[in-house]
């Protein structure tokens, strides 16, 4: 019976893969999977007769229906509450950086350093973009910075596909230490008490190198490909807002604001929410936006509102995800029974598989935690790999192939539409570069934690 349940679970897993690749709504897809992966193992628990299987999984299969439902549908989303709070504060911080003109000033100042040298300016802007996205998060922030950076790239004659790819990979590079994205990842590694088994310090210990490696690969890509024929386009760009311009005059002292939260967290262990608050008020204060109490109240209210709206589409998905994660835990005995003998428990083999098959992290496939990777993680957890190894193993394709390269990522599809690059052209470049980054990072993670 355990094999029948295991096969049914795998069939449903591939069903989700197909559904995700076809562009189905992931929020509901994940929710339905949460239900299927709760019902199947629970039915299995009632029907299994194999004494060896029962003895090996005594505790796991003795869970009652009430306990299972509580674990999946109540504790799961509740446990993610703390992550949601981080997301909201991060989005507020992003809004403050936009409104104060710090992001646009930073970009303009960087452009003034590089001038008309496409490679130099593009590389400098990529570094600044990465620095910005080491703290800020969300499609709203990517779009707000993209509408400034991408026209600059194209006015320098950088081919559209290279411009789009370089910008999106730079955003993704920053995400390796981004506390908000980390919060989402950490939700996949919660202990029985709901606390994370994967602290931020552990994440940064390799994430900072991953960031540097991804930026280095972007620099090499820009240096090599910007030597190709230059393109001069006659194009009209809609102003991002009728009131957008002339906001790029933030004082020099304010320009360090984007990295304040991450810096405070890494160096002084200041909690990230406090970091966002300090960073936001530092930005508002140095830009002279704090004039009187009532005006400050109005401004903070408005920025918070806009920040929450920015994250709204993500919140629904991320509140369903913990249900699926918790349901995956119920399935572990059945995956072990079916795949335990097939999937190698050797970290070298697993690392090679993740490096070679890294593109499976695209299109919400089995190597991304924002797709079916939650199930893959469930299977690998069942085999008994350590969190210190498993977390980076699956976060790499999630951040590189999904967040940085895949057109199923909301801000990437925005960028592709904005620059009018064909998805085929974009994917040809982003997949190859992302794949190379994944291979390098998997080698690094194997050496560090394997």
């Amino acid at each position: 019976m355990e094999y029948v349940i295991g096969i049914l679970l795998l069939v449903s897993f591939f069903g989700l893969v197909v559904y995700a690749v076809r562009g189905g709504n992931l929020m509901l897809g994940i929710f339905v999977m949460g239900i299927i992966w709760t019902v199947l193992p629970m039915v299995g628990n009632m029907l299994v007769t194999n004494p060896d299987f029962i003895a090996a999984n005594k505790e796991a299969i003795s869970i009652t229906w009430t306990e299972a439902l509580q674990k999946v549908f109540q504790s799961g989303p509740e446990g993610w509450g703390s992550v949601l709070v981080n997301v909201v504060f991060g989005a507020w911080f992003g809004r403050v950086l936009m409104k104060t003109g710090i992001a646009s000033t930073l970009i303009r100042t960087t452009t003034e350093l590089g001038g008309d040298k496409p490679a130099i300016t593009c590389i400098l802007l990529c570094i600044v973009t990465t620095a910005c996205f080491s703290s800020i998060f969300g499609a709203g922030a990517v779009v707000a910075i993209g509408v400034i950076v991408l026209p600059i790239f194209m006015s320098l004659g950088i081919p559209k596909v290279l411009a789009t790819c370089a910008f999106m990979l730079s955003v993704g590079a920053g995400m390796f230490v981004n506390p908000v994205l980390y919060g989402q990842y950490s939700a996949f590694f919660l202990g029985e008490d709901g606390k994370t088994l994967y602290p931020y310090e552990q994440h940064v210990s390799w994430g900072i190198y991953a960031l540097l490696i991804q930026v280095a690969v972007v620099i090499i890509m820009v240096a090599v490909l910007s030597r190709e024929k230059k393109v001069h386009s006659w194009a009209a760009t809609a102003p991002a807002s009728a009131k957008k311009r002339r906001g790029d005059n933030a004082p020099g002292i304010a320009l360090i604001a984007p990295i304040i939260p991450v810096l405070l967290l890494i160096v002084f262990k200041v909690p990230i929410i406090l970091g966002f608050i300090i960073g936001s008020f530092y930005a508002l204060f140095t830009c002279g936006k704090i004039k009187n109490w009532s005006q400050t109240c109005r401004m903070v209210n408005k920025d918070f509102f806009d920040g929450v709206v920015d994250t709204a589409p993500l919140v629904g998905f991320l509140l369903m995800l913990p249900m699926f994660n918790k349901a995956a835990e119920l399935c572990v005995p059945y995956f072990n029974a079916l795949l335990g003998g097939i999937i190698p428990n050797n970290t070298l083999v697993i690392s090679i598989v993740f490096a070679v098959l890294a593109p499976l992290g695209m299109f919400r496939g089995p190597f991304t935690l924002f797709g079916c990777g939650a199930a893959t993680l469930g299977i690998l957890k069942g085999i008994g790999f350590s969190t210190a190894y498993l977390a980076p193993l699956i976060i790499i394709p999630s951040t590189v192939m999904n967040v940085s390269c895949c057109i199923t990522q909301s801000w990437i599809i925005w960028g592709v539409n904005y620059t009018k690059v064909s998805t085929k052209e974009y994917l040809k470049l982003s997949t190859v570069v992302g794949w190379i980054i994944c291979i390098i990072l998997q080698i690094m993670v194997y050496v560090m934690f394997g």
Partner: protein
Amino acid sequence: MKYVISEMMEELIKLDAMEWGGYAFYHEPLERKFTEEQKKVYIRKANACGEQEAEELLKEYPDTGIKALAEDMGFTVKMPKTPAGGGHVIFAQYVEPKEITVFTDCVEKAEKLIKKEHLTSLLEGIDLTEVLLAHELFHGIEYRKRKEIFTQTEKIQLWKRPFSNRSRILCLSEMAAMAFAKKMTGIHCSPYILDVLLMYAYNEEAAEALYEEILEAAGIREREEEC
């Protein structure tokens, strides 16, 4: 809808080269490096450069269509339909060293718009494809003459001594290309008006925002302060 297209076109046709120069500098990444006086000098020089190139070419190729002229000069002219749209609409492009592309989807849409909105008399004598081709042709000529043409040789120092990074001023090329296209096609207004016209064919709101931006950049209208 705040404006109708004919109203916007009427207003934009009235703008002179100096005012369009303000719009060009609005999109210049190094804009903050120049004083208003310096900008005026550059606008004059860039326009003169474009016009001079056009005059030379018109002498050499009198009564020749732009496409034929470009092909005769060794450029490859492509005219794919390639639909555009969204907030960033590409009308035409020049790829070094000799490829000129005009995206005809935007031209067809704009021509339909001109008929529908009765803009024919307002935009009399403007052949959109010719204007776009002429603009890109200038970039081709600019590439061939990159060692001596003003728009390529004029540079500003970005870094303080002892370091050095001299950069071209990108908007000079665009201003000169517009002046070149105007002279070559003999139209009565700046080709810059196509920014609004062609954008309007895809996205009316974006075209209106662009129109407001142009008026502000030209110094005709002050932008509302954000509350």
